[in-house]
């Protein structure tokens, strides 16, 4: 398993733990009170931060070439998929409230950003694993 796949699997694990936790907290807050919404968003912020920093957390092995042309092509393709996903999310999330309501709370802005970041990283991770074939064999550079 190469570095890209390790990062992708790490992101999937973080998302699998963090997103349900955040959603459950936000769902409970709808019944209980305002403070829990902030806790739910805080969990989402931590998840998005960890997913965003995953290339730094899973660093390169020193003195070893772990990247070839195929990896570069896969990475570029993944970036394009992430780019399209980001635009889809932003357009959907920003256009619907414009026509549905008159005003929105300012806390919605960082929430939109965190949802976009987590979704983009999630889609990118799945795209990486699909392109490498989900397995840990034969993908080493």
């Amino acid at each position, binding site marked *: 398993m190469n570095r890209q796949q390790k990062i992708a699997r790490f992101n999937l694990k973080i998302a699998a733990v963090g997103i349900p936790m955040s959603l459950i907290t936000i769902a409970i807050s709808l019944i209980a009170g305002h403070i829990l919404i902030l806790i739910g968003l805080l969990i989402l912020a931590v998840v998005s931060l960890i997913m965003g920093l995953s290339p730094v957390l899973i660093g390169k092995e020193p003195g070893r070439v772990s990247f070839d042309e195929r990896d570069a092509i896969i990475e*570029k393709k993944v970036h394009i998929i992430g780019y399209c996903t*980001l635009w889809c999310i932003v357009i959907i999330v920003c256009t619907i409230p414009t026509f549905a309501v008159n005003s*929105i709370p*300012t806390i919605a802005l*960082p929430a939109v950003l965190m949802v976009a970041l987590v979704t983009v990283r999630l889609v990118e991770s799945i795209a990486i694993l699909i392109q490498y074939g989900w397995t840990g064999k034969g993908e080493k550079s």
Partner: protein
Amino acid sequence: MNRGQKIAWFQLGVVVIVTVASIILMALFVKKCEYEFLEAWWLGSGYACPVLTLTVLGPLVIFRKRKGRIDCDERDLMIDRRAMVIAFGSTYAFFIAVCFTTWVAAGLDSLIPAYWLARIVLGGWITAIVAHALTTLVCYGRGGKDGEK
């Protein structure tokens, strides 16, 4: 000058025209109609932004690929992909900056008009176009000489 460069210059031109037009419209709305700044901004950018669709339609209609001619090689593809990745990064940075700045500037627990979201999308679109066009031009060396065809 190849097709990629022509498109990049065209897109930059359209963005400049739209920016100038929206500033002029804003000034007119403030001076003649006595609108507030935010209302004038909303109307000015609203009237000017449909012109931005030219940045998408231009490459499809004005700079169409010529039949029977190959005008794209590996280098052009590499430049286009690099420009796309840089546009992605710039748009991401723009959204992060705008969302957090607005959140802090407007107040952590207050309300903002919903149409601001549409303007954030518009700003992200302009950022992506400008970043893509500038990267393309910088990668080709800005001019029309030295083997860009």
